[in-house]
């Protein structure tokens, strides 16, 4: 035998540990931390690349390749390893058989549908027979917050009336996404009290979402399942700006703006 260094953990075991580590890492990240079950097909694909890549790294020199392969060869060929061999010979085919059997079973679980909640907005949007440039679009009433607080308060109130007549059924009158019909929809209406929705967005983005609704979303956000109506059909431009004022006022959130960043 050549002068292979004696390692604390044999190479083959190292290889197995890396693969297992990555696998459980994925499961932990998706299922436990992100709370979204990772689709099986996606996991298989990731794992294929991980195994192939790790294998290449572990066998890149002749010596390291031999270190990987030798223990396997020894197991099969070394007469002194007979007991271990018999065990491996019994277990390996059983495992393979069980894997094939389970993966051929049809799943009755609903397919997982991943969608992006806040896709990139278009550069401009067409509504009310004109074009809005989203990069420069601002809420025309926002400045009144400082310059005319009385008028601003009145506009917020009018926005509240638009909200209660049109939006509470889904987003809830507490603005927490738990309206009376929310449970009957998938995806569920968004929760404006959560820091992950309107607090992250500029008012122009919110205007785009309200004016064009579910059907206005790009493909990665699965427009075909969103129940969010196309409000251009029901509300005036003015009403949308006012309801936006109300969303931020009621929740105590601030819209993001270019100026402060």
């Amino acid at each position, binding site marked *: 035998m050549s002068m292979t260094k004696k390692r604390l953990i044999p190479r083959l075991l190292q290889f197995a540990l890396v693969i297992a580590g990555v696998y459980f890492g994925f499961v932990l990240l998706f299922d436990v931390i992100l709370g979204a079950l990772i689709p099986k097909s996606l996991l298989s694909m990731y794992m294929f690349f991980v195994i192939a890549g790790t294998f290449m790294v572990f066998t890149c020199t002749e010596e390291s390749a031999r270190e990987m392969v030798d223990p396997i060869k020894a197991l*099969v*060929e070394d007469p002194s390893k007979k007991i271990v061999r018999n065990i491996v010979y019994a277990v390996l*085919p059983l495992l393979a058989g069980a894997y094939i059997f389970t993966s051929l079973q*049809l799943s009755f679980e609903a397919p997982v549908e991943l969608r992006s909640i806040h896709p990139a907005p278009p550069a401009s949007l067409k509504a009310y027979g004109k074009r809005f440039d989203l990069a420069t679009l601002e809420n025309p009433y926002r400045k009144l917050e400082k310059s005319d607080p009385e008028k601003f308060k009145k506009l917020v109130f009018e926005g509240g009336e638009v909200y*209660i007549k049109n939006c509470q059924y889904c987003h809830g009158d*507490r603005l927490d996404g738990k309206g009376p019909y929310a449970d009957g929809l998938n995806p569920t209406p968004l929760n404006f009290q959560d820091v992950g929705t309107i607090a992250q967005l500029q008012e122009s983005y919110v205007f785009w979402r309200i004016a064009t609704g579910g059907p206005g979303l790009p493909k990665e956000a699965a427009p*075909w399942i969103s129940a969010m109506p196309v409000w251009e059909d029901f509300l005036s431009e003015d009403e949308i700006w006012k309801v936006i004022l109300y969303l931020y006022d009621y929740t105590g959130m601030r819209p993001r703006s270019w100026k402060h960043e």
Partner: protein
Amino acid sequence: MNNSGNAMRKINQLMIRLLGAMLAMLFTVAPAIAASGDAENGKIIYEKRCIWCHGGDGDGSGAAEKFLNPPPRNFEDGQYKFKTTGFDDMVPNDEDNFRMVRDGMPGTAMPGWKALLSEQEMWDVVQYVKTFAGYEEEKPETQIDYGTQIPTSPESIAAGKKLFEDGDRCVECHGKAGKGSATKSLKGDYKERTWPRNLTKPWTFRASNDPKDIFSRISTGIPGTQMPSFADPKSKKKLSIEERWNVANYVVSLAKTKEVVDAENTVIKAEVAEGDLPATTDDERWDQAVPSTFLLVPQIIGKPRFFKPSNDTITVRAMYNDKAVALLLEWDDRSKSIPGDELAEKIGDSPISEDGVAVQLPVVIPTEMEKPYWGMGDATHPVNIWQWKSGTTKAPETIALSNAMGFATIEKRDAAASGLQIKSSYDNGTWRVLFTRPLSTDDAEKDLQFAEGRFIPVAFAAWDGSNSESGSKHTMTTWYWMLLKPAPSSMPLAIAVLVMGLLLGGLMWWARSAAAKDTENA
């Protein structure tokens, strides 16, 4: 007033408080201790959170008024529906209102506020609400007498059932099966339509279906609606305390157990039927099919919108064989709406329309995530719509087939040519409609071709013709799935055994040839 009278009053009040606190303890983990609210602070909260429905003056005339049924409560009139004071006492306990504010009122737009308001804030707003009717100084004079609760038992339930039905006591409004299939049209004090509660759906109870709550309702009635008090000695249908407990136990026993929404169950699983598919809605084999129950929401995404639904769930069962697929839709509807029918016209909002139900399926089973738009498809993804209508006194029930590419692009097609068939039945407040269609049709371009083992998107819609529902005014579900479950097959096992054999063989061969090489080398 002398001293002892004063002391008695105090003790009385204390007892009331204690009773209230005990009641509250029944319903929450953390007991709500009756606190005295601060009406000043309550006003601030009210003006931010409650005016939208209940109105600035508390008269129920908030902006939402016209869109809600039941309408937001008018606090100026001082009438409360869910209270535990005596049937002849207008004034509620603070704890009663506190509970409605904290937990909300299922089946109405009134939400529970505990997630957003602190305990103290809720007491404050309850205190403020009282001021609209000038109740801030009023104390209730009588309380419901609960006697001793009779625990549920088959005997108690049987006794309750008898009282429920005797002289049509409850049946008159709630129907024989308790589903609210009334024999008369009911209105509330504000002329609003009221539907008797479907007692088999406890999730729609404003104040829970705990026997004690039901006892309270039977005792006080529901003020402002036609649901009367059965504790009132003047009532011809009066019930004793014991009898009320028996009726309450019976009402609890009516709760549906199978046809209930389970958020995890989003797939209708059609099993292979032995022999012919069931030809009727009451075929015994339907009992073996696993039911999937989905929430119905009113159509509020396209014009004209619809805000006051009466149906809230629909249950689906499915079966198939090598020729066709059968879908059984079941939903509770308080009235069999047959236009022209005298009773139906009387119960419903005349003129009534036909009841109806529809199934929506994609014309092409999607292979990727992309589906047709859930509101009747879109330009590139057409849907099939099968719609049943209950018929009128002049015309029989109908089945229609159409292909839609959005609300506005609808093509009427020939249902018979695609082999679509229906059977329907109405029994004591429940419709059952059975759709049957061949797995494949002649027009594969325009009809969905069913395939085993594929996840097929499916959505449903329902119309209650007695509730002004027709055209775009209806209830609907979001997309769910339907799956024709292939019959169990031995293929997976055969392949697994084959792979095991091959693998073991290969390993043996490797070891054998290595051993041979060894002896050769030696």
